[in-house]
């Protein structure tokens, strides 16, 4: 092989490597059943308070997804998916803090939205119902115990 052929071969090999690199290094993130493919991510401290508050995901030079850590506790609560690198078409939010979205919203180009699902109020409603049930049961138990106690005392007084 001549030197020129070697150089050409190397350039071709490098070209293939560059083409394959995104596939080799591409990763997938799944949030709320939505899969996002990206090859690099950046953490940003937008408000300059020393703590990262968002992670931006890119496929090449195109912004595809952002995860916002709004309360800066290390877990994202809001995710935005982008079309064309600059237009949000999907929002996911976690209001319960379990790391899983409980609401999904479709965003149209004019920024009108359609709620796909929203269970964000459900947990608190359930909790309230359960609290009342607990209070009711506790009150019933106390009433039964008091009745037994004072019933016994009245029975004893009658006997004497």
């Amino acid at each position, binding site marked *: 092989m001549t030197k020129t052929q070697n150089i050409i071969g190397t350039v071709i090999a490098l070209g293939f490597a560059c083409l394959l690199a995104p596939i080799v290094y591409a990763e997938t993130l799944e949030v*709320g*059943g939505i899969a996002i493919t990206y090859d690099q991510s*950046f953490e*940003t401290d*937008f408000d300059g308070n020393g703590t990262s508050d*968002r992670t*931006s995901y890119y496929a090449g030079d195109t*912004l595809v997804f*952002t995860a*916002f850590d709004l309360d800066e506790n290390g877990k994202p609560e*809001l995710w*935005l998916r982008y079309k064309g*690198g*600059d237009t*949000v078409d999907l*929002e996911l939010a976690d209001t319960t803090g379990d790391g899983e979205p*409980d609401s*999904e919203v479709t965003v149209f180009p*004019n*920024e009108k*939205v359609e*709620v*796909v*699902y*929203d*269970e964000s109020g459900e947990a608190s409603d359930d909790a309230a119902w359960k609290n009342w049930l607990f209070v009711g049961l506790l009150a019933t138990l106390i009433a039964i115990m008091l009745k037994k106690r004072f019933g016994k005392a009245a029975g004893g007084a009658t006997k004497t």
Partner: protein
Amino acid sequence: MDMRRIATIIFLAALPFAVSAEGADRTEHFKKPDIKEEFCGAKIDFRICKCAFHGEYCKELGRTRNIAAMILDTKFGAYVSDLKRTFQATCRSGGGKLESDGTRCVYREPSKEKQKCVPENFEKSWKKYSDFDDAIPDEERSYEAKEHRTLLTKRVENAKEIFLLKRDMEIDRLSRAELKQYKAALVGNIKANLLRSFWRLAWITYDNIQGARSSGGTFEKLYDLESLGEGMAAYLKVVRSVTPADSKVAINTETVSGKVKSVGLSTALDAIESVGDPYAVATTLVSESVKSTYPSADITPEEIEILRTQHVKNRAIDQIIEESYRINRERRDQIIALERENESLLEAMAAWEEKERERVRGNIVAKCENAPAL
């Protein structure tokens, strides 16, 4: 148990069923639709129901069973809420009273005895006998009218806030559109387009600052003077010097308060509309920036490269887009919360209106009964 006791018990038990002084009632109940019979397939893709209930068609939908269940729950809940709202509006407009958390409508027919004292068109014209009159000073109104006014004041405040939030959302959306043009011009190295977009964005930003818009800060990051070359910094100063002193964005919502004082709260909600459509206000600002002729600028290719590095390569534009969408989502959540509050206030106001109506009816009947017989 002797017969006298039995008779007393029967008499006491029958009392509630005796014809009351109020007269007969007619009741209508809200009927919740059946999710499988009336909703699945008719109002929503049947596959979501199949996936949620039976785990079928989930792959076709690209959703897990759990998420399909959440989608179904949300959509059905919204459908039932809409039907309930229609039921409640029909009840109120028909003169009925809502009970049992808004699922039962009771139409009370006043007794014939009391009807003869009340004017024939009372149900339609009772307000002219009431204290729902802006001419009556607040301290002289009935308790019911005062409570009603407090709630209406809150509704007006909420409506103003909703207007401002919608206006700000639209300004951000239009600014983002201009930002995309700016980015395309930077990447494509089209100097004229770049300067035009830069000018328009700066115009909007400085108008916002003058209008003291709460979140004018997002787009300001583009104008960090330390990162700009001398030519662009000078261009920016020109923008600042020609942006009009009176902000297009600073809508005088005090005109609403002014109307409240002069003509009263009863027209206050209409006054909100007189301030303008929030989307039109936002568009006016952006179109002003388009109308103003941008000057040429002495900017070198090296300065354009600085802009490209700062704004594109270092992702400043992407960060501004992210933040703008995040803030608009917050605004949207605030609007939803305020609109829900206004719905609750409307229901509470309807309850006070009914109490005022009964108070007025009671006064008319009392005067009529106490009038000396001729």
